[in-house]
């Protein structure tokens, strides 16, 4: 099995210390987290983690099981790049005078779909949402024009065939949940019966 980029989506209770509990599942196994984003989900009191790692599917599946084992984790999913829609947000700080002087820069920014967030006399901040390669490319492009500062967020991702978490959460609140709330037992659904 070869390594690939996987996006892990975790729904959790909003609990202090849980970030650490989840992070050490990776660090204990000396697995690097490429990107991590955590914020409230669409459901009240439920948080959503988006974690990107480069690993084999087998490792990712085992990691998800370890994550789901944590008491305050509701659910963990993993997906390949094809199964998700994802974005990262990047901010670029550029001297305002350069943009004013160089028509080319303005054109470039438009070409990359950049929006101005702040315009001041001395600098302007642009934002771009996109994939890593796109936001990377714009750094290269802006460097000759005196890029002052750059920052990029962790990945956020929507799972293409997910139906959201509202319905699922109701399931969790039942004492006897339906089968799909524990579907992670079947993280590997391709092969119904495992073979050695």
């Amino acid at each position, binding site marked *: 099995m070869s390594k690939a980029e996987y996006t892990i989506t975790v729904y*959790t*209770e*909003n609990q202090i210390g849980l970030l650490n509990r989840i992070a050490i599942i990776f660090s204990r196994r000396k697995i690097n987290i490429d990107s991590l984003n955590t914020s409230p989900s669409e459901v009240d009191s439920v948080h959503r983690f988006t974690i990107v790692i480069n690993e084999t599917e087998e490792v990712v599946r*085992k990691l998800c099981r370890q994550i*789901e084992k944590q*008491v305050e984790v509701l659910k963990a999913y993993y997906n390949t790049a094809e199964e998700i829609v994802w974005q990262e947000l990047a901010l670029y700080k550029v001297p305002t005078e350069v943009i004013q002087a160089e028509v080319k820069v303005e054109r470039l920014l438009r070409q990359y779909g950049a929006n101005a967030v702040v315009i001041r006399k001395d600098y302007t901040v642009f934002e771009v949402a996109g994939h890593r390669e796109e936001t990377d490319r714009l750094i290269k492009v802006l460097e000759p024009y005196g890029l002052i500062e750059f920052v990029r967020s962790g990945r956020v991702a929507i799972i293409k065939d997910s139906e959201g978490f509202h319905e699922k959460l109701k399931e969790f609140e039942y004492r006897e949940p339906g089968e799909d709330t524990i579907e992670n037992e079947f993280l590997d659904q391709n092969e119904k*019966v495992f073979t*050695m």
Partner: protein
Amino acid sequence: METLASTKEAPTNSTAQSVSGSVAVLEALLAEKVDTIFGYPGGAIMPIYDALYDYNEKLRHILVRHEQGAIHAAQGYARASGDVGVVFATSGPGATNLVTGLADAQIDSTPLVCITGQVFAHLLGTDAFQETDVINITTPVTKWNYQVTDATEIPSVLAKAFYIARSGRPGPVLIDITKNAQMQLFDYTGYTPCNHIRSYRPKPIVRKEYIEEAAKLINAAERPFVVFGQGVILGKAEKEFRQFIEKAGIPSAWTIMGMSAIPTDHPLGVGMLGMHGNYGPNLLTNECDVLIAIGMRFDDRVTGRLDKYAKQAKVIHLDIDPAEIDKNVKATVPVWGDCKETLPALTELIEQKVYPQWLQRFRDCREKEEEKVIREELNPSGDVLTMGEVIRVLNELTGGDAIIVTDVGQHQMVACRYAQYNKSKSNITSGGLGTMGYALPAAIGAAYGDPSRTTVAIIGDGGFQMTLQELGTIMQFKPHVKILILNNSFLGMVRQWQQLFHENRYSFVNITSPDFVQVAKGFGISGKSISKREEVRTALKEMLDHPGSFLLEVMTGKENNVFPMVPQGRGVAEIVLTREEV
């Protein structure tokens, strides 16, 4: 103050009374039917100890001599009683002294609730006196932990703690309570036990289709083999397990943690798995056609080299913890669930069978092991005493009814290989972590956990010196613990490895010991030291018959080795019976 999202609040009623957080802690323990606490006081837990002063009649508190002793005692209590062990410790050093025991309990799935005091909430993060970030230190070694800074949370957090510790795959829980919360008065409306947390699934749903597939495999098998672990004991499924193997007629071997779930002399019991387990179960793991793993986790000490482990077999894995399935060994059929439920369902679908020829293979292996290892170990021809013969005589005297608590090393392996067990929960040992110093405090806990039985702690001369301060606990509280030190004047297990794998380069394994009998005497505990074969029986009898605790030191051969052995890095079928074969 944010409350726990998933914990149901206690119903408010008009009978609310103002109590302190400390009283709420003790009321929670009473509501959870706790009778014994192992602990040690200190500045940050003083309010709880102050409240305990008035609960002296209802709650027994055992003052240990070191917090590591408290937590191992609680582990021994939990393992002997099948219930949750409870620990009190103060902040800072008190709490950090619990870490070894938490790691041990985590890896051996022992249910514990540990309550640690913490500095005042307003001092958190200021490097206050005896402030340690206990929550973060203990996160990797607890099933769950939580810091309480407001007393109103105490009833619901403790309810959650007990529920999590004992349900599903059990494990240790630590609750850190700041001193202000212990002192805070609040309207207490009673204690409601917890039985549901929406994000927590203690038991996976049992899937009929997998039970059916498993039964099909078992019914078609020619050489099926059962390997079982502590899951059978933790699931209180000893009876269901016996019914299963007896109907299926399948030879069954135990891991060190599964030991005593069935009597050691059960006709289908073929011995212990693992590095120093029995010859047959290891060798024939690689000859069975269906391997049925029940409540065990394929530890590397059991599997040896994974790529040489049971490659020919179809594997059925029954476990309550979904994360264990496929973790080390891929399952052909995974059977998630509590074995108390899955085993009877499986038993129903399987055919009544016997496998006389297959069972004979185990007997043949046993004979070979008897001849090459066991006979000489149990009835040695030479002058020096072996650990095995001491265990043999112990078996004869206890009839297999004692709780045997072992430490870690050669004596542990010998005790587990040869001790006889008639009842479940009779073998208490540090299996996953291999914690030297475990046995003495764990035996103290076991004596409280099941006072109806004799508790024998079998300990090496090295391990005994790691926690011998707990003799003070025995002196003061008088639990009945029979301490059997098997003294080979070496850190024997490490010496064995140095001899076998490091060309006899004995590097710091030569350990000297104090006069253990004198030490015991200093603690008011009677004792005796022997080194001759003819003394063994009378001395063991004296130890067992003595009213109360007794320390018996037996001087055994210095350079005896434990065999058979699956050398590290080799497959189970490469198990060797003698030193010459290593």
